[in-house]
């Protein structure tokens, strides 16, 4: 039986909030329009990441798709990144469309705004998944059949929801606490579901590429496609090697001079040297392999940090206060039927905003351990809450009490 690399790349950019003070609240509503050459300027970032990552990587991926008929991959693109491509980088959007038009790239479902809505409002969550479906259909002519939740946040409830909603597959971190002795290199069935299948990230192999690739202290450095495929070929167990990572791994997290592009270019030729080996999309893996067991995940896991939980987004009181403030105004916001106000409010739900308020690493003085456009998590919070106050102000302008 053949064995497959299941490569899945996640593409996302938030609408970052500009420096927004209490003096702006009630005066300016342009939260996402930073002046040029500031850390939070969204078009600047889209241009930079396009040049460093999206355009060169898509060129390689398109070449590989043209060269190797066996080469397949899956992508997810959030609504917020697609809107930014449309406005500021149409050539980048076109390069993704070119990939999809080969017919060998699957696009996954998720929330339009890369939000944690599932945990705060089921209705809002479903509305955002629907918005995203429409956006993907309009942009790529494809209807997603596999669901991935923001930050790969997963539990039994999410699997149950996705099953009921008719998705054939869902993704999660292959976290040892729930896999136990089992390998992530198989297809599984989420506990308490009927038809849906679960693919779990092989975090060791994925992180070898996404995190350790440029680590000169790593004993396996430098990592070559040859060596990587050798490890996979030597692995006895498993049908599908689930390599799930941020798309921006290629060129942005790992810079071009690390050799990451050469690695990507030579991965198919090395892997396909063995005639039993192939590449599959998520759906193909689900169609090809029977589930080997049930997986029971009663608590929420994510693909982040060593804790693999939501603490990077919701771990401190600022984050809790901010997210509750935003979801707490949903009824009032929707009652306005004001599309601009509703969209601004939804953009505030993007999980990145809460990530910028994380103080886990800040405590150790290691403030560069994660990326944030704000000087401190506290400044991120202050900016965010000032925009929230302005949203309240706009509600009161429309006669809705605050």
């Amino acid at each position: 039986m053949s064995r497959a690399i299941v490569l899945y790349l996640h593409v996302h950019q938030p609408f970052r909030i500009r420096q927004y003070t209490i003096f702006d609240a009630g005066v300016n509503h342009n939260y996402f329009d930073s002046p040029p050459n500031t850390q939070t300027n969204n078009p600047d970032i889209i241009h930079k990441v396009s040049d460093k990552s999206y355009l060169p990587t898509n060129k390689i991926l398109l070449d590989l798709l043209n060269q190797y008929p066996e080469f397949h991959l899956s992508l997810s693109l959030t609504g917020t990144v697609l809107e930014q491509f449309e406005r500021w980088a149409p050539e980048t959007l076109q390069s993704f469309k070119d990939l999809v038009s080969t017919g060998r790239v699957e696009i996954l479902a998720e929330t339009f705004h890369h939000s944690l809505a599932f945990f705060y409002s089921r209705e809002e969550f479903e509305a955002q998944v629907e918005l995203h479906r429409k956006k993907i259909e309009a942009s790529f002519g494809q209807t997603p059949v596999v669901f991935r939740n923001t930050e790969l946040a997963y539990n039994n409830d999410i699997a149950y929801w996705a099953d009921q909603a008719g998705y054939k597959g869902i993704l999660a971190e292959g976290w040892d606490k729930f896999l136990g002795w089992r390998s992530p290199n198989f297809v599984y069935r989420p506990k308490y579901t009927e038809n849906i299948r679960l693919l779990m990230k092989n975090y060791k192999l994925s992180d070898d590429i996404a995190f350790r690739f440029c680590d000169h202290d790593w004993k396996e450095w430098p990592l070559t496609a040859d060596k990587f495929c050798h490890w996979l070929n030597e692995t006895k167990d498993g049908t599908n090697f689930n390599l799930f990572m941020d798309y921006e791994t290629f060129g942005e997290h790992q810079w071009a001079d690390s050799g990451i592009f050469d690695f990507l270019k030579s991965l198919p030729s090395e892997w396909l040297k063995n005639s039993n080996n192939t590449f599959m999309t998520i759906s193909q893996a689900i169609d090809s392999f029977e589930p080997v067991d049930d997986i029971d995940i009663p608590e929420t896991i994510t693909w982040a940090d060593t804790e693999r939980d939501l603490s990077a987004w919701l771990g401190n009181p600022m984050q809790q206060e901010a997210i509750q403030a935003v979801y707490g105004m949903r009824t009032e916001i929707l009652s306005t039927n004001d599309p601009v106000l509703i969209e601004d409010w939804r953009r505030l739900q993007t999980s990145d905003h809460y990530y910028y308020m994380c103080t886990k690493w800040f405590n150790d003085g290691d403030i560069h351990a994660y990326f944030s456009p704000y000087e401190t998590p506290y400044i991120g919070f202050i900016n965010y809450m000032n925009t929230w106050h302005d949203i309240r102000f706009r509600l009161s302008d429309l006669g809705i009490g605050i």
Partner: protein
Amino acid sequence: MLGWELPPYNSGGLGIACYQLCKALAKRNADIEFVLPYVYNYKVDFMKVTTFSQMTAPEWIKKYGSVYTNLAGKAADFIYSQEFSLDKALDWIIREQNFDVVHAHDWLTFRSALKVKQLTNWPLIVQLHSVESDRAGGHRGNPLVEEIEGLGVTMADRVIAVSNYTKKAIMHDYGVPADKIEVVYNGLDKSEMEPLDDASAYPYLERLRSNGYHVVTNVGRMTIQKNITTLLMAAKEVIFRESKTIFLLVGDGDQYNELIGLAARLGIAKNVIFTGFQRGKQWRDSFAMSDLFVMPSASEPFGLTPIEALFYGVPSLISRQSGVGEIYTNCLKVDCWDVNEIANQITSVIQNPGLHETLVSNAKQELEHLTWDKPSQRLMDIYQQQAVGAIA
């Protein structure tokens, strides 16, 4: 050691820093003789305190003024009278005893310290708790003071700065090379802190707080260096948005009357409370009573008050022009001149309890390390190097 004040006769942070530093050094078995210009009849068991003058601190201050008061026009009188007293004490000491190192705190002791060095050739360490350009609030300082300060840092064997911020100022103002200056941060001696009790010294503020008011506090000398005028301008913006906000200003200084006038002119007098200089329980509750401590100093070599506030569970907003920010991470930081940003951040703390809570819980973990433990060890190492160097 040569100093010019020790608590309870201190007019500011210098006396407290000297006292707590010596206490921590004594624990490391340093044998210290502390020389002061005026009578000091307070019990200190960890070091010997020597004075010459018959005058007590209050008499001294009455006659010559505090070292922090504006020295314009009478600087020379003030300096030379204090020096005379220090010199007399030292005259006697250096004839009787032998010391490994002479450690002099701030410019007022420097000329006496240099005389000792000339007579004995003992290694001289001078420590700067502030430089004249700080005290002048970024303006040109007193030329006589600059002359003495510059002479001290130039002639000393080693210079101690209380922060990198101060180190850079010494390098910039006096052209001292970087490798001659060591940074030794201040710490907080928790055993010296007044413990909390049930009875608040501010029942009125207590009542306001239970009615939804928030209290924003500054504790410090009211001088140009401390930049309270900017805080008042920001306060106006905060009160305009959050009317249930009280600004509690604790301290005395040459700007005291001016600031009261400014609060009235800005139309916020009802929301600004001036208490004058406080000690003990009143001092303690100035912190304990507040929701946010603000230190907007135009130039602050170290600035212990935010750490004292933290001891009482109060988060801080400090200016980036403050040395303490180098070792205190989980606080809000602004540029001292940025009225709007100061107002923006104060307003946010008042409006969002989650911000207050996160600041406090993270900062409390930092408090554990903000002690005199490491600073005193660092100083002992420096003494050791200098003492050995002198023999060789």
